[in-house]
């Protein structure tokens, strides 16, 4: 089976204010299905840029990206948008729940875009809420939840439509380390239960400790890539 993600010589140059910034300088990477991988590196090393590019949120200056066997650069506008909807779940550092929607509405949003029938949506929301330990919170509004709870909702939202891959950019950076560790443990449990691929960037040593594979970036290049046994 094809790897979930494959990149070839991916470079990214930002041309901010005249001075070009080389955010990525040739990344070759293969990520297999079911990995639980951390992307680490100092600030400005290109982690966010790389996540944006492999998810089709941003385009590389040069190089090739395949996601779930699809060649991303050939996809335009709406097709890419549908592809993201069906294949990638996003978790953000700032949770980024839609504040005017309830927990349930936030989680069912993607299924709504996918036109999943109402009863099935409801069932799946309840099931995933139980998985992330938030049963009974379906009708709450995000601002009424703690940061850790909001991030759990965000993970539920990313996972509920069963995408091939979950991308999380510093998912624990806004959380206490205890709550962050719990969240990571939960993500790992879901990873082993569902076989979904998780890729997350982090600065946090505690988070790194839980990763199965560590990819270290520095100045837009892969400095080290190590697989660890559990």
């Amino acid at each position, binding site marked *: 089976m094809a790897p979930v993600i494959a990149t070839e010589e991916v470079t990214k140059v930002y041309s901010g204010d005249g001075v070009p910034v080389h955010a990525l300088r040739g990344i070759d990477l293969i990520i297999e299905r079911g990995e639980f991988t951390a992307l680490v590196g100092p600030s400005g090393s290109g982690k*966010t840029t790389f*996540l*944006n590019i492999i*998810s089709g*949120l*941003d385009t590389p200056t040069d190089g090739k990206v395949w996601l779930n066997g699809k060649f991303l650069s050939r996809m335009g*506008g*709406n097709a890419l*948008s*549908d592809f*993201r*909807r*069906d294949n990638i779940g*996003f978790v*953000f*550092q*700032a949770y*980024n729940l*839609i*504040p*005017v*929607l309830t927990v349930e*509405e936030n989680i069912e*949003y*993607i299924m*709504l*875009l996918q036109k999943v029938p109402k009863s099935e949506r409801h069932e799946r929301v309840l099931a995933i809420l139980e998985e992330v330990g938030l049963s009974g919170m379906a009708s709450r509004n995000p601002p009424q939840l703690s940061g850790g709870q909001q991030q759990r909702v965000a993970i539920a939202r990313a996972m509920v439509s069963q995408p091939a891959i979950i991308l999380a*950019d*510093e998912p624990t*950076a806004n959380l206490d380390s205890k709550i962050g560790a719990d969240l990571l443990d939960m993500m790992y449990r879901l990873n082993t239960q569902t076989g979904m691929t998780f890729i997350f960037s982090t600065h946090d040593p505690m988070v790194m400790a839980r990763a199965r594979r560590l990819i270290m970036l520095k100045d837009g290049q892969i400095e080290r890539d190590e697989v660890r046994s559990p």
Partner: protein
Amino acid sequence: MMLKIAFRNIFRQKRRTVLTALAMIVGFTLSSVFIGWSDGAYSDIISMFTRNRIGHIQVHHTGYLDKPSLYDVIDSYESIGEKIAGVEGVEAWTPRIYSAGLGSVGDKTMGVQIIGVDVGREVRATRFDQKITSGAIFSETAAREAILGVGLARILKADVGGKIVLVTQGTDGAIANDLYTIIGIAESGDKATDRMACYLHIDDAQDLLVLDGRVHEIAVLVEVLDRVPKITAAIEIQIDDTTLEVSPWQVVAKSFYRAMQADRQGDLIGRMIIMLIVAIGVLNTVLMSVLERTREYGVLKAMGTKPRQIFGVVVIEVAFIALGSIVIGALFGASLNYLLSIYGISLPQEFSYGGIVFQTMYAAVTVRSLAIPAVTVLVSAILVSLFPAIRAARIAPAAAMRAH
């Protein structure tokens, strides 16, 4: 879901929503009053013009309106009048006789328009008694009396109690003349009419012109101005006579009617007021909220929402606010117009239009005064929101990833 988001977004920044709505409400109300007021003024002008002078509907011998002739007469006008009176919505009718002639007072002679009126009916229909500025009105039976227009009296240096000699031609072709006592002076409000008019009792006029109980015109007054077209048609059916022509005031006073139509610029001004206020009040606030929600829209896009759906969220939110504002604005506008239609506004200075003098202007609660602002508010709000909506639709989904 997009509707839900748009709707709930309204309540997020209450102050901003209130400000946006306020702009639309103020715009709506102002222009509603503007249009209601100009509608009121125009219907006042029209109703004075028709009520005091030409009547709402006129009946003539066919062709008389285009080319008035002494010989184009209405026979047995009494029975036609009875038929007209039977039509629903008709308030009054009055017969008239017209002829050109010469009038002499002392050594002064002027061209005059001889107007024969049925005094009782004319008073009921056009309040002829109120036009008499000095002297008296005709008595019921003919007594060789004349009432002069105020301008004519001045030119002829005539006064109440004096005598006037009228010379004209009768329908028998012979020259007709007679002597009348001037019993009153009348002011119709129209200077041109007042310079020419010499009113006679209808029987005297028939005698002078040898008309034998016939008249040139029947003027009809209706109860509700807006129903003139319907009543015109009903009268036509009722009298059922192809030698007669029934014309609404719009046809009788063609040039007046056209001038009124052309003058209706109140609508345009009303619309521009709204557009301006809405544009100023809405553009900024919508742009601000789009900017503030950049990350949120970015998240929606990252998750697979299409640009046009984001576009819709922004436009629909504005449309919701606009609809709410229209409801509130309609309440304000209608009640203000209603108050102004009862109390009116006294003008600091009289002004006259088409020879009619106004001192107090009244507004009117019309459908137009609500419909035009409503459509304009909605359309301009949506137009103004297009630009921010396009910006929102174009937000890069990567914006969602950036923490700040």
